[in-house]
């Protein structure tokens, strides 16, 4: 097992409470940062760590922080994106539910680096029991002098507030999140200006994912260079993966990004193999928006190399022969799953979640859902497959925010890799209602996939 930086103490009894968390070494990073480092030194340490945003885009966190504008007399804000809504992703929920103080600690250090005196955690409304857990941790931190006025006598003031959303995937997009935090509809803003210049209430703002901010704690405690030593290349540190679908052990795992996809799926330490002795058909490795891969392309890259669980390797082959690390939402489909139906549920999801601002997304997501429903229910035409392809191409890149791309990519990848399954639905309108296409020849060649 690799090193655990975030979940190391997750199973310590009582770790949710302040006393145990502190006894286990909690809040050391706040002491270190506030007493011995300048805000810029904290940012430099994060840059050295190579940490990349864990929300999905993988943008270097230290670089993002360094973009924060610092005009005189204007407040700056850190906003924690806890709107975790990408299908397949449930890692932030785990962190907040079981290690709330780790997030609070990361928030304090990050707020110090960015000069945020009021930091907001924007949490999705459906995680309705979690705000209380976070607010409890915040109150405990405050009672022990880690928050409030003049923290540790350093003159730094900081408060953390929890803000609940109300059911909108789009609010995970940072500018939509800021609109929502301002009490408006979650319509993404046109960039530029970027939030680092003009964010919430027109003030400079940095928005970071929960896991990203929690990772600041080990980075400050052990140093950025130590963090950068874990992993491979530009995939430094550890990553939380949430695994679901047809596997024996669904759940949240911390990986060091050096393990292979095969090990992640089949090892008892992680997913524990495909459930019920079935065979692996396909997988969406980084949340519903990233391309689905058939088993053969999932376990090995197109060059025949072992595919690893990191940003570069999962992306190897581009969108034609690869996928993405994304948010770490790992969805596994066994031989009994229908790719057409699965893609339909995702198309319905994106239609439901489109904010309606840009016509290619507002109209296109609805068209894709309708066409996919026709194909799934045996009412499709062969020309529908090309029509679907055409629609997704016209959405991609033509919208204000990435939701359009996120809606287009799953459809594109499903057609690219599983076109025969779509054609089979069209050619067998009655049979497709009573049975699934099953495992196609593309999933066969690997020994491990058929073992």
């Amino acid at each position, binding site marked *: 097992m690799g090193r655990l930086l975030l979940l190391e103490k997750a199973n310590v009894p009582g770790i949710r409470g302040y006393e145990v968390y502190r006894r286990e070494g909690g809040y050391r990073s706040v002491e270190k940062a506030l007493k011995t480092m300048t805000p810029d030194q904290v940012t430099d340490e994060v840059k050295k760590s190579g940490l990349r945003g864990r929300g999905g885009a993988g943008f270097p966190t230290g670089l993002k922080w360094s973009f924060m504008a610092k005009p005189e007399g204007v*407040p700056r804000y850190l906003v924690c994106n806890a709107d*975790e*809504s*990408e*299908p*397949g*992703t*449930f890692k932030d*929920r785990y962190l907040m539910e079981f290690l709330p103080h780790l997030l609070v600690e990361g928030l304090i250090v990050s707020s110090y680096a960015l000069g945020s005196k*009021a930091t*907001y955690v924007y949490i*999705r*409304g*459906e*995680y*309705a*029991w979690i705000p209380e857990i976070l607010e409890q941790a915040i109150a405990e931190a405050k009672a022990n002098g880690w928050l409030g006025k003049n923290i540790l006598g350093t003159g730094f003031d900081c408060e953390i*507030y929890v*803000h*609940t*959303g*109300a*059911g*909108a*995937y789009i609010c995970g997009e940072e500018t939509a999140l800021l609109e*929502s*935090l*301002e*009490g*408006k*509809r*979650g319509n993404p803003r046109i960039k530029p200006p970027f939030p680092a210049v003009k964010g919430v*209430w027109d003030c400079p703002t940095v928005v970071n994912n929960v896991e990203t901010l929690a990772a600041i704690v080990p980075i400050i405690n052990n140093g950025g260079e130590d963090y950068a030593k874990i992993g491979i290349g530009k995939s430094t540190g550890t990553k939380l993966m*949430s*695994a*679901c*679908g*047809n596997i024996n052990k*669904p*759940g*949240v795992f911390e990986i060091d990004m050096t393990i292979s996809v095969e090990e992640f799926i089949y090892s008892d330490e992680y997913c524990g193999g495909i459930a019920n002795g079935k065979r692996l058909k396909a997988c*969406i490795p980084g949340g*519903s928006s990233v391309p689905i891969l058939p088993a053969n392309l999932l376990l090995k890259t197109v060059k025949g190399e072992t595919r690893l669980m990191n940003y570069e390797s999962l992306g190897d082959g581009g969108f034609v022969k690869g996928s993405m690390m994304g948010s770490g*939402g790992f*969805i596994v*489909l066994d031989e009994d*799953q229908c790719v057409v*139906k*699965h893609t339909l*549920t*995702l198309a*319905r*999801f994106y239609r*439901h*979640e489109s*904010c309606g601002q840009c016509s290619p997304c507002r109209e296109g997501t609805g068209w894709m859902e309708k066409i996919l429903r026709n194909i799934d229910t045996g009412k499709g035409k062969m020309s529908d497959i090309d029509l679907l392809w055409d629609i997704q191409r016209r959405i991609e890149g033509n919208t204000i925010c990435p939701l359009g791309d996120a809606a287009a990519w799953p459809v594109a990848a499903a057609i690219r890799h599983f076109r025969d399954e779509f054609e089979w639905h069209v050619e067998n309108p009655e049979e497709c209602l009573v049975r699934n296409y099953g495992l196609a020849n593309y999933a066969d060649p690997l020994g491990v996939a058929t073992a």
Partner: protein
Amino acid sequence: MAKFSDDKLKKVDEIVARYPAGKQKSALLPLLHLAQDEFGGWLSVETMDYVAGLLKLEPIEVYEVATFYSMFNLKPVGRYVFEVCQTGPCMIKGCDEIIEYIKKKLGIGVGETTKDGLFTLKTAECLGACGYAPMMLLGKYFRENLTPERVDQIIDECRQKAALNN
């Protein structure tokens, strides 16, 4: 007419104070949650107008927000709302069968409420419990790893709770 108790009004002040002066509109989503919990599980026009008044907003600013977010109910719902997730990972694990089972058991369709006013069935898009599918949101909590037996237990539990409160 809908009106918060003094206790709740104190909570309103506390929420508004989280945001910078003059940015009280930011409190809108938290306040709509509070109002929905307080006034029967849904937001009537009257309730939305009341919230608009509390935050010194135009009513339209509240309507446009309330209609955007899927957690706000704009028509009455039953005392217990089952929101069953139906996105990919839940579909893989059989949410369609669970939805069918609930429909049959309660004799209602999606979006409908039982005649006794106890249950409403809704479908939801990904609620972030993909590893513990199929699942539903019931009140403040997730009910995960659903099976027909588990659904029966939940329905019985709700009925018992309702009987105790009446």
